[in-house]
């Protein structure tokens, strides 16, 4: 049998079919692009017009306007930090950093202002809430990005977003009047405590974590999903082994932002925590946090007590800064690794 093509794809010389031409044409035929296309059109050269003064002023004005917007935000942070620092810093000198940070007794009437219990309580409330809320929120994000049909997604997403819009006092009321009695009945106590705070805070962090995690999952290129399915992976395997790892930096960011939301939450926690300034002996016992102590005691505090409350505010500020810093660090590490 005569094969007009060898493996290299060259045609045999005797072939006269025009189609075969394609196979042995190595370079484009000469003279395809003539020089005519490169000759500029005839006529007097046109001058480039100069920028008008009005345009210049408008551009410069807009630039400064945006700069101003950015400056207001930065100035706000700076002013609050200076104010809180100015009012709270003296407590470190008065009591000593060790006594303030390391003291476990918060008893304003006795003059002891140790915030360690409050820090522990705030962290307990936050971590417990995240332990419940983060899986819930990440599950919601996966559902929205990769599981739900478009129609279901359009129903669920606004519902999740609405959670973010509910005022925290409403969450508090729900916790106080709906959740607390149930907890009280099952635990035999009053129902105030970490258990109630965890549940309320868990719901409150869902919209933050879900929205940012969903963005992270959606930003994973579809080609990667296709590649996984084409490898014979199921949807579950694709989500678990490829999508979640690929989106991990964004999801960790989301969880840290959720932490910020939980540790800063005041009103809802105040209403279900029971507010006793000790590390609670169990999850059904009352506790006081860094935020709630400020709200509860600032109205009547004076002297060292007032300064100590500003010191608590400094602690909250530092914890938030640590969260933001860790987000930056994680995304930088994440970028370097992939």
């Amino acid at each position, binding site marked *: 049998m005569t094969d007009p093509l060898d493996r290299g794809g060259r045609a045999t010389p005797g072939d006269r079919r025009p*189609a*075969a031409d*394609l196979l042995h044409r190595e370079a484009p035929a000469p003279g395809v692009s003539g020089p005519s296309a490169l000759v500029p059109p005839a006529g007097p050269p046109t001058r480039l017009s100069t920028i008008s003064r009005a345009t210049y002023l408008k551009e410069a004005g807009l630039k400064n306007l945006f700069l101003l917007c950015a400056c207001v935000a930065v100035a706000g942070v700076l002013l609050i930090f200076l104010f809180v620092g100015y009012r709270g810093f003296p407590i470190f000198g008065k009591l000593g950093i060790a006594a303030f940070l390391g003291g476990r007794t918060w008893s304003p009437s006795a003059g002891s202002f140790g915030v360690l219990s409050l820090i522990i309580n705030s962290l307990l409330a936050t971590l417990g809430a995240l332990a419940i809320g983060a899986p819930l929120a990440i599950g919601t994000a996966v559902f929205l990005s990769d599981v739900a049909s478009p129609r279901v997604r359009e129903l669920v997403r606004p519902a999740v977003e609405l959670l973010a819009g509910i005022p925290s006092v409403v969450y508090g009321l729900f916790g106080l009047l709906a959740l607390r009695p149930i907890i009280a009945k099952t635990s035999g106590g009053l129902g105030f405590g970490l258990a109630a705070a965890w549940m309320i805070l868990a719901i409150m962090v869902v919209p933050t974590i879900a929205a940012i995690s969903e963005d992270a999952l959606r930003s994973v290129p579809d080609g990667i999903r296709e*590649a996984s399915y*084409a490898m014979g992976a199921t949807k579950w395997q694709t989500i678990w082994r490829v999508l979640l790892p690929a989106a991990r930096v964004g999801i960790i960011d989301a969880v840290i932002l959720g932490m910020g939301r939980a540790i800063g939450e005041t009103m809802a926690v105040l209403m279900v925590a029971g507010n006793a300034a000790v590390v609670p002996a169990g999850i059904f016992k009352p506790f006081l946090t860094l935020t709630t102590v400020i709200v509860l005691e600032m109205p009547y505090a004076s002297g060292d007590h007032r300064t100590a409350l500003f010191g608590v505010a400094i602690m909250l500020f530092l914890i938030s800064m640590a969260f933001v810093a860790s987000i930056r660090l994680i995304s930088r590490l994440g970028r370097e690794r*992939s």
Partner: protein
Amino acid sequence: MSETLAEHQTGVPPHGHAEPDKFDVRKLDFFYGDFQALGDITVGIKRHAVTAFIGPSGCGKSTFLRCLNRMNDLIPGSHAEGTVLLDGEDVYGPGVDPVDLRRRVGMIFQQPNPFPMSIYDNVAYGPKLHGVRRKAELDEIVEKALGRANLWKEVKDILPRGGLTLSGGQQQRLCIARVLAVEPEVLLMDEPCSAIDPTSVQKIEDLMAELKDRITIVIVTHNMQQAARVSDFTAFFLQEKLGEAAKLVEFDRTAVLFTSPKDRRTEDYITGRFG
């Protein structure tokens, strides 16, 4: 079309017609919702050979390719009618698991799409999915797959590095290694060379020639020179009017199709009169 098929099957070289076709597609229609994208496709994909699908953009060649491993299932509202037999078994038959099908029929995409994980983990992904756990066994599979994809020499010292740090051409070979690690019977390649540099194209074309002894390869390409260089068989697809279903115009040995096409439209296309 059926006469044409019968005709050239007699002209197939010994290694081709001794065995039944790997894929035997009969009267396949494919729909995106109400729109019929493919009409009445009947073709046999030869075992241990490279088959190229050519045709102008939007002519349904990629759609058809994705029918072979049911990747189209992932598009909501799409469905196929007709039969696609893989070794005599209908891949669209009741109860057929598309996940298992895709393990047997691997796919390479136009855009190299390594996972954002290490080179090693990219290649070990498939074997791990299918239950390989032992480190020593995984190591062996990874080395072998990278070796078959002609990438082992370049990456053997940087296996823990991220797959996305490689060049485009290396990434595409990493994707090929990733597929080879699960020992597929068929490799579908959807314009695998159109997003990478010429040197890498050369490497991938060489690779296809090496792989076809053991694997049936189907490649969609816009580049007719490439089809002529790498394939043993060529199928020409065409959507004649916008909104009409794409059809298979001609299927033949590459040598025959490029030198003496039977259909006027094929000749017009490969001589560059349109498309």
